[in-house]
């Protein structure tokens, strides 16, 4: 372990890696502060920048963008009551009331400290667990992999804000779109309509930028006529009161534990972690009566949970090749662009990349802590920039980003197509995020399904005979039934 950490330190502390880590956390926070633009948009926008960097540096930078954006989302939550990211919406509940009481400085400081605490906790978990999971993953067979991916897809569906049924539909649509291109087993071309550019399938970045960048601009540009007016942040009471320091410790620990757990579950991510952390704390806290009215614990728990989950989401991503969230799906895309295949062999095949990335998390979280306290004034000013500059800028940035992938105008047109698809889906209450997870996992699922069926000589019972896959499938079915039951009852009642 010590040798690995030493290798990680040697990789993470090179001048270029430190510089790009700093740049990533800074730009991530910058984008995360802007309401509506979360880590997914931040990573998608900056992905093309990473193409020309060595794989370690690219990953270090993108990871910095990711958790920087997660942190930035909390700033807008506290100052404006507008969550920069879905996972920071829980922070609004107590962060904004604190700001209204003139304690914005305290809330922001506590956010920075809780995020750092949760982040470091998550790093320790990932350093301890990821190698074990990678060793364990080597024992898994195709049927187990298929079942893990099925669980990931189901988990992504049931936490979808548009409901389980619509979530499953989006995931399945993503799986279908992932089949476009040449079938690797038979060499047959599928669903390309004779278009040569589609033979290699649709680029993940093109899909992501269309679904999230273009459709977001179409959705939000019209209302973005002005900046968010806000009162001046009072810095007079910057530090928490004496008794509050001690009160924060328990919630920070509980939040980090809950966040670390949910981060490792494929398909769940930070939003689930911060909301469950908040719900648990509301039950166990002696100060529960003040929750929702500006309780400091109500800021500490979601922030520590959120950041711990942001780190541990890398565990399934790196060791199994299964994204823990949509942003992690993009990180898988980034790894593949650099010729690195995520999975059980990543740690043994690319130790410098893996351990360098883990150690860079530590520096990234430190940058976040040291940078963001003095920079809060800048973020506040950033929110005053008129938003009508924002969306046209996003449109041009993503157009150039997609074009620079392969100098392909076909990609730009495809991105526009996905932008329109994402827009229509959102009009009809279909959240496009699970589609991206299905798009990533679909081809892998198909591969493992076909391999498992070949090994079992066509007997589908293989998925229930292996204990690992049987348990995963049982959990998936249970999750689906539990979440879909109320809706099904309503449907049956309305038909009857």
């Amino acid at each position: 372990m010590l040798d690995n950490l030493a290798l990680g330190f040697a990789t993470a502390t090179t001048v270029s890696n430190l510089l790009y880590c700093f740049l990533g956390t800074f730009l991530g926070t910058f984008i995360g502060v802007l309401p509506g633009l979360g880590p997914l948009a931040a990573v998608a926008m900056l992905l093309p920048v990473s193409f020309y960097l060595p794989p370690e540096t690219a990953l270090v930078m993108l990871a910095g963008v990711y958790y920087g954006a997660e942190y930035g989302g909390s700033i807008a939550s506290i100052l404006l009551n507008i969550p920069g990211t879905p996972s920071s919406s829980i922070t609004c509940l107590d962060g904004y009331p604190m700001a209204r009481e003139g304690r914005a400085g305290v809330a922001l400081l506590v956010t920075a400290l809780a995020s750092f605490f949760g982040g470091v906790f998550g790093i320790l978990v990932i350093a301890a667990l990821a190698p074990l999971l990678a060793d364990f993953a080597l024992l898994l067979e195709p049927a187990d992999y298929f079942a893990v991916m099925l669980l990931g897809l189901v988990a992504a569906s049931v936490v979808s804000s548009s409901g389980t049924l619509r979530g499953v539909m989006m995931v399945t649509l993503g799986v279908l779109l992932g089949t476009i291109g040449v079938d690797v087993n038979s060499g047959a071309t599928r669903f390309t309509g004779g278009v040569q550019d589609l033979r290699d399938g649709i680029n993940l970045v093109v899909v992501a930028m269309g679904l999230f960048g273009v459709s977001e601009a179409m959705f939000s540009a019209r209302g973005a006529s002005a900046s968010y007016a806000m009162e001046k942040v009072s810095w007079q009471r910057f530090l928490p009161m004496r008794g509050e320091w001690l009160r924060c410790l328990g919630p920070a620990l509980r939040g980090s534990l809950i966040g670390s757990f949910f981060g490792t579950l494929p398909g769940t991510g930070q939003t689930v972690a911060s909301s469950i952390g908040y719900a648990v704390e509301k039950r166990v806290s002696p100060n529960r009566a003040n929750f929702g009215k500006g309780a400091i614990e109500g800021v500490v728990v979601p922030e520590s949970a959120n950041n711990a989950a942001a780190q541990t989401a890398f565990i399934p991503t790196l060791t199994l090749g299964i994204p823990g969230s949509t942003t992690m799906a993009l990180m898988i895309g980034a790894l593949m662009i650099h010729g690195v295949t995520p999975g059980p062999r990543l740690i043994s095949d690319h130790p410098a990349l893996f351990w360098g990335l883990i150690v860079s998390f530590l520096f990234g979280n430190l940058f976040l802590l040291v940078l963001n306290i003095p920079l809060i004034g800048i973020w506040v000013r950033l929110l005053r920039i008129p938003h009508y500059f924002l969306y046209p800028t996003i449109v041009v940035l993503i157009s150039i980003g997609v074009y620079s992938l392969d100098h392909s105008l076909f990609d730009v047109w495809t991105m526009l197509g996905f932008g329109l698809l994402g827009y229509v889906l959102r009009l009809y209450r279909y959240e496009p995020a699970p589609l991206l997870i299905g798009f990533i996992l679909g081809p892998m699922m198909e591969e493992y399904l076909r391999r498992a069926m070949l090994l079992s000589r066509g007997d589908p019972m293989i998925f229930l005979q292996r204990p690992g896959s049987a348990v995963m499938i049982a959990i998936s079915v249970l999750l689906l039934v539990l979440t879909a039951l109320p809706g099904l009852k309503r449907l049956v009642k309305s038909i009857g």
Partner: protein
Amino acid sequence: MLKKLSAQAGTLLIGAIALVFIFGSLTVLDLGTPRRMGPGAFPLIAGGILVILAAVAFVGDMKDRAEHQKVDWRAVVPIVLAVGSFALVTPRFGVLPGAGVCVLIASFAVDALSPLRRAGFVLGAVFGVWLVFIFGLRLPLEAFRGF
């Protein structure tokens, strides 16, 4: 009835996409056997599941008289034209003219921009694109072409 159906356009679109994949799997691709699944088997299974789910969502939404949001053409049209014009202008005149036209058209998707402000914004954005992508990142993009 037509109004009721138009309220289900999203679900119908998803169902239609699934049907295209099912049709393609059945008519063009080999389905293989359970032991050796062909390239058409997996899309057929996924497409079948999606059609069933779309039917359930359709029935549920018809019963609930589910609401949907209206298309905001004033935002959608400029953004579609902006991306389209980037794709048309860039190969002929280079990235910077493409970016300029793109920002100019996209800026019509937002309100409250005076002509002077719009011109300043376009120039600023083009300078920003040059600074970040061409000067800063040194991406192999052609700034101007045909001049």
